[in-house]
């Protein structure tokens, strides 16, 4: 059922039109004999579905960027609710403050005790401000380091969820050592003696994403992106103009499908027709299933084996086709 808050992307406009017709029909049918419009409604639903399947079957990199940033796409909070029981949020970096752009804590994932953390973008004005649109400051990365330290001491696997445009570029962030904070967080993941699995659920923006992605396995949703710089920022640097963002999205090979060929990600998680936002529950469950399998496989490895697997994984990137 359509709701007034539903967001349509540009290329979804035909779907939007069909669905607004469906809404009208639904209203009309309320004042008519039951079943009068059933055939028509059914036909329209079929058309909308076919259209979605078609459009989402051949999204270009720039369209995928829009989907990855879709405001209704499941966020960290949704994954926590859907996949983690007994979640206990742990706050603060014990140095300066608590950065809600990174949310994390302890919990149980399908029975296994884990530490879980990730970027949260927020969904409305209030929560977006609270979470700083998912753009972390040093405190966010230092909290991540703290949680990974804790996980290692208690033998907990670490699950991270990446969804950020990038680290926050601000005076305070620089003053408190943004670069160092990111570097330490990346390092902590890479040196962890427990399994670490990263899922890129939306936008994997630059160093701010990598800071939570120094993992044994990096999973990515079908329409997510992972990039060294946002297409817009890349465009403004290389073209002195943000208008070439679509070109940059294509050239920088930022889609899940590009990245798996480069071995930067290990596994693509299929999304429901119309993207994760079309059926969040199904998307979240699919993510959970893959994490469960990967976690099972990684739990066979010793601490040293895990570190070695991670080192080999990252060292191999770029070498295998050289």
């Amino acid at each position, binding site marked *: 059922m359509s709701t007034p808050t539903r967001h349509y992307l540009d290329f979804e406009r035909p779907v939007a039109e069909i669905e607004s017709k469906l809404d009208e029909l639904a209203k009309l049918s309320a004042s008519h004999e039951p079943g009068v419009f059933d055939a028509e409604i059914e036909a329209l639903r079929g058309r909308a579905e076919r259209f979605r399947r078609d459009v989402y079957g051949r999204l270009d990199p720039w369209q995928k960027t829009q989907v990855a940033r879709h405001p209704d796409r499941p966020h960290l909070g949704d994954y926590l609710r859907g996949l983690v029981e007994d979640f206990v949020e742990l706050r603060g970096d014990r140095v300066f403050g608590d950065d809600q752009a990174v949310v994390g804590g302890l919990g149980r994932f399908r029975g296994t005790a884990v530490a879980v953390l990730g970027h949260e973008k927020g969904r409305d004005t209030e929560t977006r401000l609270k979470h700083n649109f998912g753009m972390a400051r040093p405190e966010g990365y230092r909290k991540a380091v703290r949680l990974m330290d804790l996980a290692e001491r208690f033998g907990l696997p670490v699950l991270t969820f990446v969804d950020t445009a990038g680290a926050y*570029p601000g005076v305070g962030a620089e003053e408190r050592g943004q670069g160092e904070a990111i*570097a330490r967080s990346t390092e902590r993941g890479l040196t962890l003696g427990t399994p670490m699995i990263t899922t890129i659920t939306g936008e994997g923006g630059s160093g701010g994403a990598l800071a939570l992605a120094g993992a044994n396995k990096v999973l990515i949703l079908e329409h997510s992106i992972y990039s060294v*710089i946002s297409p817009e920022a890349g465009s403004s640097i290389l073209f002195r103009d943000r208008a070439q963002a679509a070109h940059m999205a294509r050239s920088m090979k930022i889609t899940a499908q590009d990245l798996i060929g*480069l071995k930067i990600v290990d596994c693509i998680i299929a999304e429901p027709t119309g993207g994760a936002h079309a059926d969040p529950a199904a998307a979240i469950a699919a993510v959970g299933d893959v994490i469960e399998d990967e976690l099972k496989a990684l739990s066979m490895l010793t601490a040293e084996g895990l570190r070695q697997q991670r080192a080999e994984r990252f060292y191999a990137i770029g070498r295998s086709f050289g």
Partner: protein
Amino acid sequence: MSDPTPPKPADDPRTTAPSERPRRGSGWLSKIAPGVRSLVQRKDTPDNLWVKCPETGEMIYRADLDAAMWVTPSGHHMRIGPGLRFQYTFDAGRYDSVTAPGVREDPLGFVDQKPYPERLSAARKATGARDTVAIGFGDIHRTPAVAMVQDFAFMGGSLGMAAGEGFIKAAETALERDAPLVAFTAAGGARMQEGALSLMQMARTTLAIQQLKAARLPYVVVLTDPTTGGVTASYAMLGDVHLAEPGALIGFAGPRVIEQTIRETLPEGFQRSEYLMDHGMVDQVVNRRELPQRLGAVLSILMQGRNRKAA
């Protein structure tokens, strides 16, 4: 990520330092039409006897600048490339060059305003180097050490696959020789033309540092102007000791990006070496002339401690 555009030649001694690149002063053009040549190259010819201080605008006699290690009378540390850096850093300027392994070029077939291979060949022609990282092994104030130098004149020092492999090779060389690693960083950030493959170098170089840590070999970073973006968010900030040359721009986000975000002009001295020292990210700001001695002290003390512990 900040702007990795290489500096204008006038800012960069690489184009004026004769020890760094072949002289091409007597080409065919100067023979047939000397006037034309001086017209084209008037401002930044390699033969220019005078160099402008980027800070004060003062004109400095190049021989004097050379003698002053490319530090202007006002104290401005001009950017220098690997050749001069090795010469200044290693005792008597003597060192062995270590070649970094080759990488697959243009892995993405990247085109912006120019195809990436064209940018690469232009940078190679201008610097005489294959890519931005050079590696040397020699004595730093009597302590054997590996030095890795990033050349800002080569595509803004940008961290791509070649630089990543270069850093890894430098770390491996340090392990083989049982010697410390000193990294002289200079970069606008990651090399966008290699997409996420460049991002991965932040993780790969971080792993190389772990190998040094495991072997208890010192890893010292010397931050030079400018060090920003992905380099700052990886190996530039993971040293056992961080030294910086005076006045170097050091940060994660470039000043332009921050100004666009906060819509304010940034305070004087923001993201400079001294500012980073005041904020706890840099141990010491050291003049270029004193660097070898200071590095030597740090390296020899750490190595002495290490070898005593091992004994």
